[in-house]
């Protein structure tokens, strides 16, 4: 009997966690879905943000995601290849791993400060897509490295041995045997990191984001509007908090949909890969 009560208490904890997710999505969906329309997604804000759509911040966020992918994916995959394929257990590896682990622990607002001091001020990139993407790159680099490492380690050792036994060099083995096998895994893991970059606000506030620009960015040195920053400003600093409420809901639901969509795609794809595994 006591056992039964204990088990039910334990079940309650998981119910609370799952319910929290459900309530947040339900609440935003209930209030936000009705405002969604093609115009909302494709028109710029009007009348001091109280009307119109969210086209510029949506595009800005997509630019930032794209910039981050372009920088972070190659960096992360190449680093992971060194760590898994060339590892000779030793001091170098241990120090590198310590670096990666601690980079993963750096608070997002500190990344923002670093981006401001280094990319915006020191390198003179200004508040721009470039500065923002590079800042986000360093933030998600550890995630991409870990995901890639996991995917590379999942390729059976026998594949490598077979290739090396046929006279292929190490590089040929990596390039022609290991990478193609690991590629889908690398991608799904990395997408989860990208999803995080899409929703982050603190690192881009000082490095990329602007509350309002009349035109879309023309180069990577232009600042952009971004969905998370847009939502933050509308919800906290606007002069017409009540009037912009529908737009706040709309922005929130689009941002949530974007991030959850990215993550869900990665999770579903990963589950299918695991089921289909041929070795």
């Amino acid at each position, binding site marked *: 009997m006591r056992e039964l009560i204990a088990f039910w208490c334990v079940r309650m904890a998981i119910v609370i966690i799952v319910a929290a997710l459900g309530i947040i999505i339900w609440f935003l969906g209930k209030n936000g879905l009705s405002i969604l329309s093609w115009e909302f997604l494709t028109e710029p804000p009007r009348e001091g943000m109280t009307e119109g759509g969210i086209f510029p911040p949506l595009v800005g966020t997509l630019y930032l995601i794209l910039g981050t992918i372009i920088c972070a994916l190659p960096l992360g995959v*190449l680093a992971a290849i060194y760590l898994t394929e060339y590892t000779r257990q030793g001091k170098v590896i241990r120090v590198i791993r310590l670096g990666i682990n601690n980079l993963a622990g750096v608070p997002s607002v500190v990344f923002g400060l*670093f981006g401001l001091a280094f990319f915006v001020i020191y390198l003179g990139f200004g508040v721009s897509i470039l500065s923002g993407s590079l800042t986000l790159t360093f933030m998600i680099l550890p995630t991409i490295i870990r995901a890639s490492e996991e995917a590379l380690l999942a390729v059976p050792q026998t594949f490598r041995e077979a290739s090396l036994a046929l006279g292929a060099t190490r*590089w040929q083995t990596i390039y022609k045997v290991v990478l193609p096998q690991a590629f889908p895994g690398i991608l799904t893991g990395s997408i989860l990191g990208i999803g995080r970059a899409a*929703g982050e606000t603190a690192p881009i506030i000082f490095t990329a984001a602007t509350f309002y620009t009349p035109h879309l960015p023309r180069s990577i040195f232009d600042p952009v509007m971004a969905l998370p920053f847009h939502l933050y400003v509308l919800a906290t600093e606007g002069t017409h908090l009540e009037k912009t409420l529908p737009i706040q809901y709309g922005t929130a639901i689009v941002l949530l949909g974007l991030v959850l969509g990215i993550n869900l795609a990665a999770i579903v794809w990963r589950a299918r890969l695991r089921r289909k595994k041929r070795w």
Partner: protein
Amino acid sequence: MSARKYKERAIEGIFLSFALVSLVALFFIMLFLFQKGLPIFRVIGPLEFLFGKSWYPTYEPPEFGILPLIMGSLFITVGAILVAIPLGVTSAIYLAEIAHPWIREWVKPTIELLAGIPSVIYGFFGLIVLAPWIQDLFNLPTGLTALTASLLLGIMAAPTVISISEDALNSVPASYREASLALGATRWQTTIKVVLPAALSGISTACILGMARAIEETMAVLMVAGGATLIPTSFLQPVRPLTATIIAEMGEAIHGSPHFHALFAIGMVLFFITLGLNLLADFLTHRFKEAGSGTL
């Protein structure tokens, strides 16, 4: 043959240089935080900075004591942990020890999704739903309090606690459970008296990383914590944690002014707090691994 060898060597070198990027990045982060943060100590001593009781950076003369901000972070983090650890560890026990495999298959991705929700969305939800609710419940002048931030952060930090605790529970060898069950213990007794102690250091790691997650959270606490820079005495007061201060004030701080440097110095403090927590977690994990293999 030797040309081929050189080429291989060169390729390995290229990979090594990419692997070093994270390390270099970490070094640069420290370098630039120090470069912009240390000048504040020409204006105010380190001890006065850390333990000064008032933060009025825009007053004349300005005051740069960050104790109220540290206390704000501490209140919120303690509150968040009180939510996240019981909830997270019990959920992990459920997932690892009790749940049917098909439930696990559904709940784990759900938790991953929960971890993926942007913090500004949590902040928005807290602002619109949680804060008014807290305000009504306790009959307060404002719903933006340390308690509101703690509840929100507790839910946000729970996925971290769950996933690491669950890994720790799963790595307890099945033979431990079998031995306990064979001695006539029930499943609950086995879980509480055998599995949980065996996974204890892994679970402590989970709790420490959950704590780090709560301290470093920025947007959500900025939106719901209220922002008062007084030293808090109760959970029902508005507070302003370290992270929120940086975001809220950087826009108005003039580049190169003491205020600007003070905000970077707050970044340094945050950096070292989280670095310390991560190193502690790292240490615990390694000790755990050694103990595990040693006793088998």
